[in-house]
């Protein structure tokens, strides 16, 4: 039980993608212009990581090594298409906004990375916990970046005006160059925070 909790929680801070493992950058940059699209994509990613982790882990004994990448990718792609169809069926507006980024979950290195690094070697339960943790961690990161970009860039959050009406909106953050810089600074801050924590740990030890 403890190990399940550990595998789950490590995705939330210790190994939170994309800040710690710089994985899945493209979608982080692309969909964080607004909170709703970030959460939408995040949901999709959670589903895909969980499903691929579980299936890969379940099949880990029968998959020959030489074709494992191909098999993993088939599994992942299947999960992605399920997400795609489901979104189309029930969240059509979001589907339109996210556009190409839904099929692109398939090449999000986070998903394949977890399959390769974790699910391939661990039990189904642990893989489930890992996939869920990583997926949620990824979604939370998306949400944080999206909050910053949407609030400062447009003055809104989930489309609701949160800044005073006079606020001009710092459009730069909504544009691609702003996305890179915003994420870069956040990674730097993340490093600062974890360096502080490490120092504290060291001082305590």
């Amino acid at each position: 039980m403890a190990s399940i909790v550990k595998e789950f929680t490590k995705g939330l801070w210790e190994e939170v993608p994309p800040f710690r493992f710089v994985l899945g950058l493209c979608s982080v940059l692309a969909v964080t212009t607004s909170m709703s699209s970030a959460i939408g994509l995040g949901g999709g990613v959670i589903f895909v990581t969980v499903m691929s982790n579980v299936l890969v882990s379940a099949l880990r004994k029968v998959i020959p090594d030489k074709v494992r990448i191909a098999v993993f990718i088939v599994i992942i792609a299947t999960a992605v298409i399920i997400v795609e169809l489901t979104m189309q069926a029930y969240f059509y507006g979001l589907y339109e906004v996210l556009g190409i980024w839904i099929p692109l979950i398939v090449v999000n290195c986070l998903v394949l990375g977890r399959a390769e690094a974790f699910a391939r070697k661990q039990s189904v339960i642990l893989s489930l916990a890992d996939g869920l943790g990583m997926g949620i961690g990824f979604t939370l990161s998306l949400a944080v970046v999206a909050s910053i970009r949407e609030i400062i860039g447009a003055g809104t959050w989930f489309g609701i005006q949160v800044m005073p009406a006079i606020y001009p909106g710092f459009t730069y953050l909504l544009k691609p160059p702003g996305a890179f810089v915003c994420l870069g600074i956040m990674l730097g801050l993340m490093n600062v925070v974890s360096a502080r924590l490490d120092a504290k740990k060291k001082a305590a030890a």
Partner: protein
Amino acid sequence: MDPIVINSILAMGGLGLGLGAALSVAAKVFYVYVDPKIGEVADCLPGANCGGCGYAGCSDCAAAMVAGEAAPNACKAGGDSIIQAVAAVLGVSAGAAEREIAKIFCRGTHTSAERKFLYKGIQDCRAATLVAGGDKTCTYGCLGLGTCVTNCPFDALSMGENGLPVVNEKFCTGCGTCASVCPRSIPKIVKESQQTAALCCSHDVGKIVKAICDAGCLGCGLCKKACPEKAIEIDKFLSVVDPEKCVGCGDCYEKCPTGAIQSLLA
């Protein structure tokens, strides 16, 4: 059954079959021997192919690790567990039955060792050596500019107030980086259990050592005489303790006129 189902199954099955066949045939026809160790190391790596290590993908990084070009901790995405797994495959730390740590073999602090001149320039021991051989009169002693400190990959060294580096034994892994970067090889890697050593590197005759340093080994041989286990030899005016023979009785400590011979366990 709906044609969609049949079409999907056919298309995917065909694609899978074709690719599987092509890949297996290619793997057979174009077989190239690869060091199986590379595969083993690659298995330990995350396999995310993120490129964060600077190498093109995990297997490239693994190849570099096996070839010794990359350190076992090159994978930044992996975390400690992966580093350990890689190290285990590479056998880096596997053979060492006993933990080794670095010790500073010099006691020439600001107050006890003489300086020839006031050094001004790059604060790095190796760079300082280029300027008239370094500012310490003793040509074997620690320069105290902290090249070992800045190069320690595990942040296990710090510069003490008296001008000598201090090893934090909790973090030291005995990797030997400090010993190799020091122009005078002051940090030495010893077994954790070694009890006694003369913390000095000077091969100068006693007279010279006495003139320039209060804490150096004079090579007087009093410790040799005092040692009941015959664990101490004098090598070119420097006493050397054989850790195998030393029992840590401490008889030599009192006899040493400069206190160069020390217990390492204190």
